[in-house]
């Protein structure tokens, strides 16, 4: 424990240099911008900027990109409260009470509450990372290929078990990711797979292209369909409102704490920020004294989802750093960045690249404090950006996405693929196929496959290796429980209906 605090202090020394603080501020400003704009978000914003960081030092690069992520998490709330348009999927729940508050002229109050609770959620998650991550990493050093495959299996099963979408669609999305990851040269045997004689397919599909297409162009197409018109309340925020709201907030400590726990749980097991925010909102409504007034502009209804979303978004980095398994699409993109900068995420990172890890963790503290101050002071500016007509913003975002897709490998073919992924994203989103499992499978595909094949090599093709010792079998058992969870809960519902007992609401 003490050693970790010492490491953290060293991390602060790494993070607080002029250059890194500058990158931090750039990251946050860009992050809020992409959080506010439709079609650009945490995942594809980081994906687009990733190629620009290839020449930077990994520590500066990850500080800038992770701050971009915090910024995007903050930014989503602005559009929800002022315009009733969630800038990010995880701020949908914030619109329920945030927008009514805005309409009652309490936009400043709502935004202060949103930003502050975002900050609290993030801080809780960073503290968790600071003290838990080294332990997890030390524990994971004992892992062999079967354990790693089991953990990855658990990751994917938890998508099926905890997702809001139909299990079959989650599985399809995941398997498409795995199939796309397999395209190209097989690194183990040197065989070409699914290239069908096309030289463009030799290198396979890069998940960055998929992220930019699915979340970028796909989102723009959806926004076009909805016929976007920004009609919103004015965003005004001053010191008096901020202080008044801060004095009010401690009353909701229980809601906050619950939201923090839900968020961290959903972030570490890859449920993600979006389900975390909904779950937290639902819980707050059930437990609050004013539960029946939720939806009419309750400050608690803003605190609950925002805290949980930030806690989930931040804690998603915990499994990414310690196990090499990202807890969210954005964490997946950051993981891809680590690989490109030549760092192997996983338990060894904590031993071989101490500076990097602790610099990043220290920057999480600083980035969130800076983020809170920046968003509180710049709200009117972001609100003004949203008044730019969509007919200007839309083509500019597509141009930026295309450039982002091209710079990943300097390939024209990737721009074409981005458009294809954009169309797929549009259809999948509308048919309620979840996109996150596809992205994660695309990132983890090679790793999962290698772990699986190595395990099979060790055991000579016997699947029982995944139940060979206590650790691996308990992970696998947990995974299988999660995989079958939808069946169990549906079965229970049916049984209740038949036995005539009333189902609890």
């Amino acid at each position: 424990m003490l050693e970790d605090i010492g490491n953290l202090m060293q991390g602060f020394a790494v993070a607080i240099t002029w250059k890194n603080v500058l990158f931090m501020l750039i990251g946050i400003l860009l992050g809020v911008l992409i959080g506010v704009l439709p079609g650009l978000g945490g995942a594809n914003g980081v994906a687009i900027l990733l190629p620009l960081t290839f020449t930077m030092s990994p520590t500066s690069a990850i500080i800038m990109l992770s701050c971009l992520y915090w910024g995007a998490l903050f930014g989503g709330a602005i559009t929800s409260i002022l315009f009733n348009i969630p800038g990010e999927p995880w701020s949908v729940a914030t619109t329920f009470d945030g927008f009514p508050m805005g309409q009652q002229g309490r936009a400043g109050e709502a935004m202060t509450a949103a930003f502050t609770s975002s900050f609290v959620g993030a801080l809780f998650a960073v503290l968790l990372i600071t003290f838990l991550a080294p332990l997890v990493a030390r524990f994971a050093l004992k892992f062999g290929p079967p354990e790693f495959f089991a953990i990855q299996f658990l990751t994917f099963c938890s998508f099926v078990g905890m997702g809001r979408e139909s299990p079959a669609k989650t599985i399809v999305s995941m398997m498409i990711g795995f199939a796309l990851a397999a395209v190209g040269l097989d690194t183990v045997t040197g065989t070409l797979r699914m290239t069908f004689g096309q030289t463009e397919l030799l290198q396979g599909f890069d998940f960055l292209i998929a992220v930019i297409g699915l979340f970028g162009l796909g989102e723009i197409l959806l926004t076009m369909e909805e016929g976007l018109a920004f009609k919103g309340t004015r965003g005004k925020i001053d010191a008096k409102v901020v202080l008044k709201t801060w004095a009010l907030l401690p009353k909701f400590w229980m809601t906050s704490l619950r939201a923090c726990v839900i968020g961290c749980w959903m972030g570490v097991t890859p449920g993600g920020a979006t389900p975390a925010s909904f779950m937290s909102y639902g819980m707050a409504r059930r437990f609050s004294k004013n539960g029946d007034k939720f939806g009419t502009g309750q400050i608690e209804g803003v605190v609950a989802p925002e805290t949980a979303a930030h806690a989930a978004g931040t804690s998603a980095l915990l499994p990414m750093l310690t196990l090499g398994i990202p807890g969210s699409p954005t964490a997946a993109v950051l993981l891809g960045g680590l690989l490109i900068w030549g760092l192997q995420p996983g338990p060894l990172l904590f031993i071989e690249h101490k500076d990097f890890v602790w610099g990043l963790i220290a920057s999480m503290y600083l980035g969130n404090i800076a983020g809170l101050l920046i968003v509180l002071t710049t709200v009117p500016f972001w609100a003004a950006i949203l008044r730019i007509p969509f007919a200007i913003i839309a083509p500019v975002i597509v141009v930026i996405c295309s450039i982002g897709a091209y710079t990943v490998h300097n390939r024209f073919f990737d721009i074409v693929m981005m458009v294809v992924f954009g169309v797929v994203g549009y259809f999948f989103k509308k048919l309620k196929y979840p996109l996150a499992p596809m992205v994660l499978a695309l990132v983890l595909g090679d790793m999962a496959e290698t772990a699986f094949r190595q395990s099979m090599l060790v055991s000579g093709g016997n699947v029982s290796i995944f139940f060979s010792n206590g650790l691996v079998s308990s992970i696998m058992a947990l995974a299988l429980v999660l995989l079958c969870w939808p069946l169990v809960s549906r079965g229970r519902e049916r049984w209740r209906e038949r036995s005539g007992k009333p189902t609890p609401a």
Partner: protein
Amino acid sequence: MDAKSGVRRGDLTTRWVELVVALLIVLGGAVVILDSLRVGISWAEDGPRAGYFPFFVGCILVVAGLWIAGRNVAVWRKLDGKIFANRDELKPVLAMLLPTIAYVVLIGVVGIYVASAIYIAAFMLWQGKFNLLLTLAISVGVPVALFLLFEVWFLVALPKGPVEHMLGY
């Protein structure tokens, strides 16, 4: 598609889109399986062959795709009148998608900067009905700013065409 359920000609109904997508997934799964069989799914003397893992992936895709398609057909009647996107919604989507495809083709011909200028200008005039001056300012300004950012500042080369070559890049 009867008038009673409110589905008009040109509307996409959810059940058909769902079915077609599910069948495409089955088809994709079948392609994965076939290719895995080609590279070998069995066990070589040094371990599993390249198709070993993708074969499972393909099988799961086919099964899950058939499951979704089957469920969709099972509740086919119930889905009557559910619309994936009606004509008025599809129009703006196509108004975005078609120019974007043209834009990508154009990038291959004249490079990304000129293509971006044309794309933004066309979109602003056609969709936004902006006046010529503002359109020109933005459609030229954005690519120039991007050019400075990428080619000059970050030294990242983007696809260029005859116009940039003429200017000596």
